[in-house]
């Protein structure tokens, strides 16, 4: 979520404010992970970032960085599938801010970046927050892409849903699974309450 937020804000701004050729294609590409079956997303990530994949090879040869079948890959898979949801919310939030306010800020001496952050993004903040929550929810539940991309390695890539799935499949794993189920309920509720509180503070 933290990884995808800056990208979502950047792309959200581009899609909300700019008009260019291929905007439709960029829009489609950004939303692809939302529509594709997660297993396909995981498989594509594997093709791209696996040890023999185009990017994966560069990363491991030049930086010694391994992504597939590591915790980094699990994070990336979660970020990728959550991204479209966050992007949608951010884009809508930015679109709802009057672009003339930002221009007024410019005439008052704010540079473009400053104007964007102090006016547009600040006014879009509740929407950005909702987007982040959606992305968090989606990545918490992420299963298909993760298991395809980074497998289910204990202590490395075993995310919460994967762990629950593993325990349920074991003959005596029910108690452990129940603990994890409880944990996910607490996490989800906590996130919901936290975002609601922050959103309310922002509005007042």
């Amino acid at each position, binding site marked *: 979520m933290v990884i995808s937020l800056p990208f979502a804000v950047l792309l959200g701004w581009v899609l909300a404010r700019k008009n260019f050729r291929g905007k439709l294609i960029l829009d489609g590409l950004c939303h692809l992970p939302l529509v594709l079956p997660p297993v396909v997303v995981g498989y594509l990530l594997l093709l791209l970032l696996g040890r023999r994949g185009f990017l994966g090879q560069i990363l491991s040869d030049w930086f010694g960085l391994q992504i597939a079948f590591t915790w980094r890959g699990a994070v990336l898979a979660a970020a990728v599938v959550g991204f479209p949801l966050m992007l949608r919310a951010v884009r809508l939030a930015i679109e709802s801010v*009057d672009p*003339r306010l930002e221009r*007024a*800020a410019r*005439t*008052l*001496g704010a*540079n473009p970046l400053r104007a964007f952050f102090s006016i547009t993004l600040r006014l879009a903040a509740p929407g950005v927050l909702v987007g982040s929550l959606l992305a968090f929810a989606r990545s918490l539940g992420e299963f298909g892409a993760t298991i395809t991309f980074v497998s289910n390695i204990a202590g490395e890539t075993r995310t919460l849903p994967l762990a629950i799935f593993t325990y349920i499949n074991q003959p005596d794993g029910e108690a452990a699974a129940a603990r994890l189920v409880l944990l996910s309920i607490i996490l989800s509720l906590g996130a919901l309450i936290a975002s609601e509180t922050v959103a309310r503070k922002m509005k007042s």
Partner: protein
Amino acid sequence: MLTLCVHRQLAEFTLQIDVTCTYPVTAIFGPSGCGKTTLLNLISGLMRPDGGQISIDDTILFHAEKGIDLPPEKRRIGHVFQDDLLFPHLTVRQNLLYGYQFLAPSERKFHPDTIIDLLELNTLLDRLPNLLSGGERQRVALGRAILTSPRLLILDEPLTALDQELKDRIMPYLRHIRTDLGIPMLYVSHAIGEILQLTGQVIVLNRGQVLAHGDFFSIAHQPKILPLLEAHGFENVLPVEVIAPNRVQYNNQTLHIPPCDRVSGTHIFIGIRANDIILCRQRPAGLSIRNALSAQVIDIVETHGRSLVYIDVGKRLAAEVTPEAIGELALKIGDPVICLIKTHAIRIGPDVS
């Protein structure tokens, strides 16, 4: 001094401006959609001209050939928009200081307290903009722009969204800014009455072209300007001398005017709409109208179903009369007439400079 020499293609016409404004306040007058707002956006850098140059004093803001195009934040132009565009998430105080905070202390010409006092914003400082009235919002927008210590203040019909009473209340603040703060202003409006309360220097714009530029009272009677003014119901202007708070003198004839704050002996302009002038053959008795000027008919023109009778009272005035009335009074060129004007139909203009 603002030097403008720019052109820009718009949807329906090309905006083509070549003027120099030296007067402390210059007004841009023109009907809606004549390119006024575009022109201001070109000056403040929110739109890019297709070519030409813009400079204030020695600072070049835009120069197509030299490749100079300062971004809006570097131009130091205080832009007051038609909709005040206050930042809804900031309090009045934060709005006022938004631009001020970007200035180095040495660049700050005004202290926030001075401006807050001048615009009487003291009681509003901690409120959010959505709790303000239209007039209050516009005052905050004014203050916000002034506190950026601008080289030039450009006002885009700042009073249009307000009702007449509020307009009258904001106008004194604008006069304060003009007189006390000494910030050059470019004031855009389609209401000539508003403009004349601030300045007599006018640029008349129509369909992107400058029709005339100069002292309003010397250009107002030009044949291409008059129709524009007439379309806005403001045709007649007289230079008069104030002799009492509610009386002025013109050519040894006394006129009653609405109370004004000018000192006796001051020479001011007054404006009268053509359809507020009544013509009659004899000086009437038993009428409530106080103002009756002797005049002579110099021309009768019929256009677009309206008839205008031009009369000479020492200066040319236009009076709108129905064609039937012209027939009934049997008016013809050279006839002496009496013209009647209601006191409250007279608008007070600026000082004669």
